[in-house]
Every structure is written in C-alpha cells, then in structure tokens.
C-alpha cells in the first residue's frame, strides 16, 4: 500500500510539470506586457526596458521556463506585478480559506447528496423520490453564481442573518459554502440514486433479506457500501468542481481566497498570480484524486487485492 502511494505521488510529478509548462507557455505567447502593467501611467520606453531586463523577460523562452521551475522548488512564485507583493506569501494566507470552503462544501455535498440519493432510491417512484429528484434537477440546472446571488439576497439583505460579503468569523463562510455545495449535492444525489437502484435488485440484497436483516441494516450495511464505489469517484470529480466553483463563489462574496486572487490576476494580466493559482489548484486536485483512489481501495476489496498481492508476494 505504501509503495502504491509513493508510486502515485511520483507519477504526480510529470502531471504537475505538464501543467506548469502548458500554463507558462500559454501566458508566454499571450499578449500583454509586464512592464506596462508595472509602470502604469509612468510608462517610458527606457524604464520599461529596464524592468524587462530585471525581470528577465528578454531571455529566451526555455531559460525563462527553466528559471520559473527552479524557483518553484523554493516555493517562489515571483512577485505580483501589480502589488509587488510576493505571490507565495499571498497564497499562504489565501489557500487555507479556499481549502476550508472546498472541504466544507465537499462534506456537505457528500452528506446531503448521499442522503437524498438513498432516500430517493429506497422509495423509488414514491413521493420522496419525486421530491428528491425535483430538488436535484433544480440544483443541477441553477448556475452556481445565480444561486449564490439568490442566497445573498435572501439571507444577507432581506433577512440580514448573515454577512453578504467579505472575510471575518465563521458566519462569513456559511453562504459561500452552501452556494458552492449546491451543484454537487444535486449531482451526487442523482448518482447515488442510480447506483443504489443498480444494487437494490442484486441477488445479494435478496439474500440479505432472506437472512432476516431489517430494512435499515440492509440499506446501510449491504446496499450503500456497494453503491458507494461509483459515488466516491463522483465525489472526487465534485472536488474539482468545487475548486473551480470557488473562483465564482469567492468573486460573488468578495472572499479573499485563491479563486478570487486568480480572477483579480486575470483582470490585471498579473501573470505570476495567474500561474501560481492555476498550479496550486491543479496540485490540490491531483492530491484529491489520489485520496479518492485510496478510499476506493478501502471500500472495494476487488481493488484492494491488487495492492495486497504486491505486499504478500501473492499472485503476480
């Protein structure tokens, strides 16, 4: 198992390297001049040339790329061209917020998505099923930002229960997390329902019933563990959605996280910021995918056996 994790972590390196190269190249060839952004109104040809020289922007593409990657090993993403602040220090304060929103959203997504899906599946074609599926349909069809605005309007402005934007105590996280989780809950509920329905008519469920188990035990001990396997993959994909969604949600609620930072960077053509945020988000995503694969192995013995065979030297 440990060997497998190490192998997967090593395999992540080329993926991340690929992301760095693609993002760097795209930004390298895209229009926009760092010097003019940094100088703003005080732009002169000489000072622009001087800045390009100090930033190393006159050097060949490969040299610039090499330097960028080399600096990454020291967690140095360069400075923001607009504010002049080190991007890494910005990320250190912003990343925890985004990760917190992301993880909370995923937890909410998982809990409510699975609960709704199970309720719908075990009451197939009854009113509970219809209710859950209408909710899920609404959730998948409503764009995240629209729902976010709706939440802000109702709970922040009309009812004034929660702050509409900004950063502060825990109450500032509630609306963004809820808004971010909605799409995931809806999609996961649908996924859980369909994979539960696939399991529900299995022979081993009839067998569980024939053993004299109560309905509750059959659902949670026999159906759900089997239905969870495809659901886990969906949860992993949702995490990607949640990270991407944080860009919109953080912008709507003016929450200073990585997503908001990325949007600001894009607007200002602050390429160091854009690059750093993209890389951080893709690393986070790769790690989550690894985590999902490991969880799958815990749940599904058919996958687990592939690792244990390596360990015991059994099989091939």
């Amino acid at each position, binding site marked *: 198992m440990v060997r497998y994790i190490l192998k997967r972590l090593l395999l992540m390196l080329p993926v991340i390297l690929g992301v760095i190269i693609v993002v760097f190249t795209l930004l390298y060839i895209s229009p926009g001049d760092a010097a003019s952004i940094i100088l703003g109104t005080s732009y002169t040809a000489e000072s622009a040339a001087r800045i390009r020289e100090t930033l190393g922007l006159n050097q060949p593409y490969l040299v610039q790329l090499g330097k960028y990657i080399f600096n990454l090993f020291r967690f140095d993403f360069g400075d923001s061209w607009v504010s002049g602040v080190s991007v890494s220090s910005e990320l250190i304060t912003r990343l925890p917020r985004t990760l917190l929103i992301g993880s909370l959203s995923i937890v909410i997504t998982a809990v409510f998505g699975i609960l709704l899906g199970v309720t719908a599946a075990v009451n197939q074609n009854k009113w509970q099923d219809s209710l859950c599926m209408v909710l899920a349909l609404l959730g998948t069809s409503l764009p995240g930002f629209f729902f976010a605005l709706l939440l802000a309007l109702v709970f922040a402005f009309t009812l004034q229960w929660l702050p509409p934007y900004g950063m502060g105590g825990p109450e500032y996280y509630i609306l963004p997390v809820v808004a971010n989780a909605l799409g995931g809950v809806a999609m996961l509920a649908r996924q859980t329902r369909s994979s539960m329905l696939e399991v529900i*008519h*299995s*022979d*081993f469920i*009839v*067998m*569980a*019933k*024939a*053993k*004299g*188990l*109560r309905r509750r035990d059959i659902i949670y*001990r*026999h159906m759900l*563990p*089997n239905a969870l*396997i495809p659901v886990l993959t969906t949860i992993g994909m949702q995490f990607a959605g949640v990270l991407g969604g944080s860009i919109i949600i953080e912008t709507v609620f003016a929450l200073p996280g990585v997503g908001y930072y990325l949007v600001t960077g894009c607007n200002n053509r602050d390429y160091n910021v854009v690059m750093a945020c993209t890389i951080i988000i893709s690393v986070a995503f790769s790690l989550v995918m690894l985590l999902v694969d490991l969880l799958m192995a815990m*749940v*599904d*013995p*058919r996958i687990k*056996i592939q690792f244990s065979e390596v360990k015991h030297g059994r099989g091939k």
Partner: protein
Amino acid sequence: MMKSDGGDIFLSVRNLTVEYVTKQETVQAVNSVSFDLHKGKTLGLVGETGAGKTTIAGAILGVLPVPPAVTRGGEILLDGEDLMRLDEATMCKVRGKRVTVIFQDPMTALNPVMTIGRQIAEVIELHDAVSRKEARVRAERMLEMVGIPAARYDEYPNQFSGGMRQRVVIAVALACNPELLLADEPTTALDVTIQAQVLDLIRELNSAKKTSMILITHDMGVVMEMCDDVAVIYAGEIIETGTLENIFEHPAHPYTIGLFGSIPKINGDSERLSPIAGLPPNPADLPKGCKFHPRCPQAAEACKSGEIPVREISAGHFCKCRGKAGEA
C-alpha cells in the same frame, strides 16, 4: 387441492397464488398451488424455467419484490402458523433462522464488499444473540464444516471460485440450524464435478440435523438423488405430485411423461430424444382449461375449458389431468 394423509406435516402451502403486476401486463406466476412437506423429508419442485418454482420459494420466505409481485391469496402454514399473516418484524425472525434459502447463482448471491466470514457471522449474530466474537468462532466452524479453511474468514467473495462461493452460501443457510431449507437450483450454476460435491454436502448436513427441505430444480437426476417426494410444476400449477417412486416409475401426466422422454437414457432403444413439442405458454396470457393442452399429445375437447380436476391415481399420487392419465 391435494390432500395429504396427515401425519407430521411441517410445511403446508394452500392455494398460493402470486402475480407479477405491471402497467403493461399481469403475469400469473403461481396459480393456486398447494403442497405439503413432511418433517425431515425433501420435496422436489420440478419444472421448466419460468414455471414459477423460484416464486414459490420467494413467497414462502416473503422476499418477493413488491411491486411487482402481488400475493393474491392462500396460506403458508409452517408448523401450523401462517407465515403470510406475520408482520414484517416477526417474519424477520423466521427468515434466516427457521427458514433459510440457498440461492441459485453463487456468483451474485454474496455481497462483494463484505468478507465471507462476516456474511456468515452476521446471520448468527442476528438470530442467536451472541457476541461478535462468539459469532466469529461459530462462523469459522461453519466454514470448516462446508470445507473451507477457517483462515480464509477474512477474504472477499472475489477470492473464491463458484463452487467455494456456493459452499459459503450453504454455510449461511445452515448457520442457524434451520427447520426448513429452500434450495433454489443449488447446483445449476456449478460444473458437474462440483455439483456432486455440493449435493453430497447438503445431504450430509441435512440428514445430520433432520432439516426439511424443498429442492427446486429442473434436473431429474438431482431429484432422483435427493428427494423423497416430487411435485411437477407447469405454468405455475402443480400438475402431478407423489412420492419419488410414483413419479419416476408411474408418471401419469402427459407433461411428466414428456419430461422423462426428453432425458437421454444410456440403455434407451431410440437414438433421438423426444422433446415436448411447442413452448411453455406465456404466463401473461395462459390458455384456458388445462394449461398444457396446446402441447399435449392426448388433448381432447374437454381439456380446452373449465377447471381441471385433481385425481388421486394411487395413494398419495395426484394428477391434474382430464385424459386417460387421470383415470384411476
């Protein structure tokens, strides 16, 4: 329908009728079936695929999928107690404890993400109110009994072959010393060498504990090996029932006779088998009168309508036929 000579009847099914109702059609799976099972005996339910055998087992255990299954009536008396009148909670105590089942397909009957040992221990824990630890010890003993090393307790179904899995299913079925065992084609999914082993295993464990059993099969060879009494089912009805000897030596119903005609005999004179002509009727659109008349070589005008009476040919040998076969 078919009366018994009394005695120690353990299970008595009376006029059991089960339909599968969907928006499109109503499938009459089991039509007013009655039979008795004596204590410690084995009854063979024989019939073609789709004749309603598995539905009868499901109805006895109360595990038919609802919807679409609708039980229209009848009684299932287990030791005099009507299982169909029990509430769900009481029925849960019957299932897995007093009445257990061996399923047809061992490849799908086990939960793929639960260890096989746990699947056995679960039923022991549930019914015999023992600690988890003790349940494990007993489950390990069950594994050994069906010929699987106890060391494999913590392995998953995918690590076992079909025959081994069927042994696990048997261990689950016998874990709580049931009074009635429903074996639903226990050997159909297995290859021939394993079939014999599994049948031997069931017979040994059964005779040791005096369990009554209903063996569902379409394999006449298995019936001859295992059963004391036989009931032949066609299109959801029992058309002939009697002792093993009655059915094998003096088959009366044209369908039963046809069944034997379609089995190869090693010392038979004819080179060719004589299959029963035609196909089983569509259970959503059963023929009137005798369900078998469209395929029956002896069908007369009288067979095409009305209720077909059951006649006792000899003591304990009943046949549902209007033709010559039914005449005493």
